[in-house]
Structures are given as structure tokens and as C-alpha cells.
């Protein structure tokens, strides 16, 4: 481990080489680019702070230190006698969620890593998602979203600016559906994936009990809040959620959503923020996920659309289309 140029020298042959080959095979399946994006986002958020005015001359620094100590002593005195408790100075969970809601209005695209957990019996009911293996990336702005990779690990799918749902399992073509003609399996997949943060936060503020999941005075750079719906959640509605919100930026870094589905079974979706970026509407359209000139089948070509979907994801769509 001594050479800076090669942090991982080749092992000796034998067991070490076998273990190393296994690690290297696993390493080749990772995505360090996404890892770096996440780290960079957090580093940038942490280093974006207002610049404090600096006193550069030595004598002013000394005078400043004395003045600061005097002010500190005065504050301690006042605090001791006049401030009832430190807890009152802390924001409430609702205030933190309101701040996150206000930041969200600024309107950049948020990209999240999504991991979905479905109970076994739900996998049969939602075949499109039963075949999902591993996390996906969901980028969303308003009600637009795009999920990559798509169903069965192929291509992408999403909702465009017009509210249409599209599926592009390959860059050779895509299928587009108006909301009124959406097949049931796709409807269910949308309900589970959609992450309209604005309405979601409004709902959380209006219909949920909010509590700290972790004490807010811990020396962490995030707040963690648990939201539990006051009343019984309807099908596909959020029953509870856990929000991790950055203290400085009020960005939602992570969101765990438990949706009520069949009876007592629910789906849990974990959305971890990767980045907040600017994306124009084209990024949410099927055309930007297929080759130039590739067909995009809509309601005007129902037979071709049906054939296309069955050809590419028919095996996992089951009888839904």
C-alpha cells in the first residue's frame, strides 16, 4: 500500500489472488461515477457557506478576541437567566419540512438512487417491478420523471411534460400512453415510483404526525424526521415516511416511503439524493432516450405500440397489456 501511483499492488498467487480476483470482479460491476457525483454534491453543499468578514491586522485580531470574549460572557449571563431552555431555539420537525418545501420550489431537477422493496405476494401483483434488480436512478422535476434503467433493467421509462407515460426499453423505439389508456401494470409502477416532492411535502405537512427520528441537537449535518399519516392510508398512498434533510441547504438527501398496497403488505421505496441539476423538458421525453428518427408509438398506432411493448417487455408485463 506504499506506492501512491498503485494503491492496490498485485497480490501473490494462490488464495490471495483468488480473493483479489473476486473483489476485482465485483469492483468491475460498480459505478464509481455515481459514487463520485454523490460525494461531490455533499462536498459542494458543505463548502458553500457565507464568507465571514476577516480582520487581518494583528492588533485588530487581538482586540476582536477580547471583544468576542466579552460578548460571549454577556450572552452566557443573559442565557443563564433569561433563556428558558436550549430546546426552544431548535426548529420543529414541521418547520424543517416547511423549509425543505420552500427550497424545493426553486425547481431544479433532483436525481435520486431508488431502491424498492416489495413483499413476495406483491411481486405477483406487480410483475413489472418484480423483475427489478438493484437500484435505479430517478430524476424528477414537478410531475415529470425518468427512471433508468427501465423495466427488467432495460432502457428507461418516465413521464413527460404532457403527463404521458413512456417506455423505451431500447434505443430503437418507445411506446407512449396517455393517462386514460395506461395499462394497469404501468399504472401501478407509476404510483410506486412517482416522487412529486412538492405535493408530497404538502401532504406530509397537512396529514402526517411529524417527529424527530434522531434528536435534532446531535452534531450531524442532517435532520431526520419520521412522518406518520394521521389516518388509514388508501391503496398506494403513503402510510409513513422518513425524511433526511440537510441542515444547511434544506435539500432532501434521503426519503424512505412506505406505501400501503394490498392489505397489510406495503412497498418501501428508498430515494437517496445523488444530485440537484438543471435538466430541460427534453430530458423527460421518450425522444431523448431513443436514436434520432427511431419510432415513438402513441395512441395513433395502437397495434404497433402493442407489438413493440410485447416484443421488448412482454415476458415481464404478463397479462397487463
Amino acid at each position, binding site marked *: *500500500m506504499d506506492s501512491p501511483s498503485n494503491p*492496490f499492488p498485485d*497480490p501473490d498467487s*494462490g488464495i*490471495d489472488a*483468488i*480473493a483479489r*480476483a473476486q473483489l476485482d*470482479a465485483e469492483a468491475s460491476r460498480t459505478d464509481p461515477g455515481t459514487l463520485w457525483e*454523490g460525494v461531490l454534491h455533499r462536498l459542494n453543499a458543505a463548502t458553500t457557506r457565507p464568507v465571514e468578514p476577516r480582520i487581518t491586522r494583528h492588533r485588530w485580531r487581538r482586540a476582536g478576541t477580547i471583544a468576542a470574549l466579552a460578548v460571549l460572557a454577556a450572552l452566557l449571563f443573559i442565557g443563564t437567566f433569561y433563556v428558558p431552555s436550549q430546546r426552544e431555539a431548535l426548529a420543529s420537525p414541521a418547520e424543517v419540512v416547511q423549509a425543505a418545501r420552500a427550497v424545493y420550489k426553486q425547481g431544479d431537477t433532483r436525481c435520486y438512487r431508488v431502491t424498492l422493496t416489495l413483499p413476495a405476494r406483491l411481486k405477483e401483483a406487480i410483475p413489472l417491478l418484480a423483475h427489478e434488480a438493484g437500484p435505479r436512478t430517478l430524476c424528477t422535476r414537478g410531475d415529470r420523471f425518468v427512471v433508468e434503467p427501465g423495466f427488467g433493467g432495460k432502457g428507461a421509462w418516465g413521464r413527460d411534460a404532457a403527463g404521458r407515460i413512456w417506455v423505451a426499453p431500447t434505443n430503437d423505439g418507445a411506446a407512449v400512453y396517455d393517462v386514460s389508456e395506461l395499462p394497469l401494470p404501468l399504472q401501478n409502477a407509476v404510483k410506486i415510483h412517482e416522487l412529486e416532492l412538492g405535493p408530497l411535502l404538502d401532504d406530509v405537512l397537512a396529514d402526517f404526525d411529524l417527529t424527530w427520528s434522531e434528536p435534532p441537537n446531535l452534531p450531524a449535518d442532517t435532520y431526520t424526521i419520521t412522518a406518520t399519516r394521521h389516518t388509514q392510508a388508501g391503496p398506494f398512498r403513503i402510510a409513513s415516511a422518513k425524511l433526511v434533510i440537510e441542515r444547511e441547504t434544506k435539500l432532501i438527501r434521503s426519503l424512505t416511503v412506505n406505501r400501503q398496497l394490498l392489505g397489510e403488505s406495503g412497498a418501501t421505496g428508498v430515494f437517496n439524493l445523488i444530485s440537484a441539476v438543471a435538466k430541460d423538458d427534453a430530458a423527460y421525453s421518450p425522444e431523448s432516450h431513443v436514436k434520432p428518427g427511431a419510432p415513438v408509438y402513441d395512441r395513433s398506432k395502437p397495434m404497433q405500440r402493442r407489438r413493440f411493448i410485447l416484443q421488448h417487455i412482454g415476458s415481464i408485463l404478463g397479462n397487463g397489456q
Partner: protein
Amino acid sequence: MLTDEERKRYEAWVLAVGPRALAYARSLIPNGTQAEDVVQECLYRLLRRVAEYNLERDGVKLLFKAISNLCINQATRNKAVLSLDAVRDEDDRSIPVPDHSALRPDQIMQYRELEEKVRQTLQNLPPLQRAAVELRSLGMSKEDIGETLGVSTSNAGVLVHRGRQTLARELGSQTGEGSDEGV
């Protein structure tokens, strides 16, 4: 915001070190998303304090130490869930160890079955043994492994030895050969 120079330097380092750090974390926590969160958290903390150490010289050691701390704690907490086979016979009986010296990494990788078997066998090792064997395979010395895992140097040697023994025993029938040289 980071300067361009800082960003490029950190990015190059993360891209070089990240894949094996992720692979290491995933071997300790089967939940891939949790493992990625751990690695991202460790990288973030490490890079925020980059002024306090030499990134290129000491960064890998510090990163793997942080990952080990988080992952092994988690793996220990979740032991019953992660692997019912995690508790294994660790007595020091003399076991005939096959000789693997004729195998090279490029040969090994030709055999998918062997890869799966190695993965399973590593997964079944107790977390500390697994970590020790993997850190050794990444070129760490006995001293570095001890420091990374928070155990003594001699204990690190024992962990590597036992991990290798188990691997050799389990994989002996697949490879037909093996050796168990000291750390």
C-alpha cells in the same frame, strides 16, 4: 464550492479507489445500497478533512479503516439476518491445505463457477476474517490490516491465516491446488 483543481484531484482519486472500496463494502454488507451509502459517507468525511493528512499516501488506508468500522459493526449487528452460516468452526486443527500456486488471476476469472464459489465462501467467513483476507488481497501488510480492523498485528495474522485456510479447504475441490503462505 471546491476549486477546479481540488475537484479533479478528488475525482481521480475516488474513481481509482472507489470500485474496490465498494466491492469491499459489498462483501461485508450484502445490501448493495447500504454498502454504497457507507462508502459515500466515508469518502465524504475523508475528503472534508483532506487538509489533515496526505490523501495519496494515507487515503486508502483511512478509507478502508472507516469502511471496516461501519460495515463490520453493521454486519455484526445483523449477523442473524445476513448469514446463518456466519458462525463457523474456528479451532486450529491441522487441515491439509491444497496448493493453489499454479493458478493465476487471469486463469481464475475464466471460471464463472469458481467465482461464485469464492463469493459464497467469502460470504460465509466471519466478518473479520473476510475483511482480513480481502485487505490482504489488496496488498495490505499484517500491520496495516491490524490497524484497519482495530486488532493487534498478531491477531490480524491469525485472521488472515484462518480465512485462507477456510478458503483453501472450501475451494480445494474446485481448484485442486493451494498454498497458505504467511502474511
